[in-house]
């Protein structure tokens, strides 16, 4: 496999899942909040845990975005070291 297409696949693998990961994090966070509100506390706390879960979900989304970028940077640095 040529160098170019190998790098292409690597980048696709690393960046191709940003969208899905971001959305999945928000879904999990908000789903957890809704579950806490409706099932655990029987609607007594209704909007609060949903919003807290949503906030944590968005934060988790940004955190995984940050991780992906950090990891990619590390790989680039390794590649530069190999070239030198």
């Amino acid at each position, binding site marked *: 496999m040529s160098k170019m297409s190998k790098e292409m696949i690597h980048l696709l693998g690393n960046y191709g899942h940003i969208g899905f990961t971001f*959305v999945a994090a928000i879904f999990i966070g908000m789903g*957890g909040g809704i579950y806490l509100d409706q099932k655990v506390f029987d609607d007594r706390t209704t909007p609060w845990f949903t919003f807290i879960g949503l906030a944590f979900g968005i934060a988790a989304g940004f955190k995984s975005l940050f991780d992906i970028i950090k990891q990619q940077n590390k790989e680039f640095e390794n590649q530069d070291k190999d070239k030198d």
Partner: protein
Amino acid sequence: MEHPILFISIILEKLGLPIPHGPVGHGLIEQLCAPYMTYTWFTMIFLVVVGKLTLGNLEMVPGKGQNFWEILIGGMDDFFVENMGRELTDKLFPMIATFALYIAVANLIGLIPGFMSPTSSINTTLALTLIVWVTHHIIGIRANGLAYVKHFLGPMPVLIPLMLPIELISNFARLLSLSIRLFGNIMAKETLLGILFMLAGAYFAPLPIMVLGVLVSLVQAMVFVLLTVVYFTQSNEHAH
């Protein structure tokens, strides 16, 4: 939508076995005869038989079949070593390579009329993802012991109440994103092909989508394997 013609289901129906009409059946036998199950078995049999036929007797000077597998397995081995290191690769190579071959074949099989991709059912992809997810936690615990918890606690003790939910949510998001991406891509391909065949199959309308389908199938198999490798590496290394 009109149901696609699946030849294994037709054969099983002729044999008198119950074929579910919805996506998943009710009884045990009906669930075992669901199309995604039968085509999973078909993929497994295909891989085993082809492997047996081409690698039946290993030779020092490889022939055509053995050459193909040597390049494929050697390439995968190099790729894993580059990303995970020698030690982890030796431990986990059989599992990840099997995933790569299985997902690639299972994706591509759906391009042939009369077949369907087992990976276009959420059950298959979720099962694969669960295996990867549980394994990466086991690797983390085996490599770091109790210190594996530090992966979820963030950089500073003060930030633990904030970071713990965030880390947990992003960890569970892996489960969702890994399974739904593979499922979504392959199901979209299958559905699009089905609709185009129904509308204008006689005028070769599905042909461009089939070309894209080959690309999507291979890329998705690669992405799944790459992410598996990344997760294993991350849980294997020490917490920052």
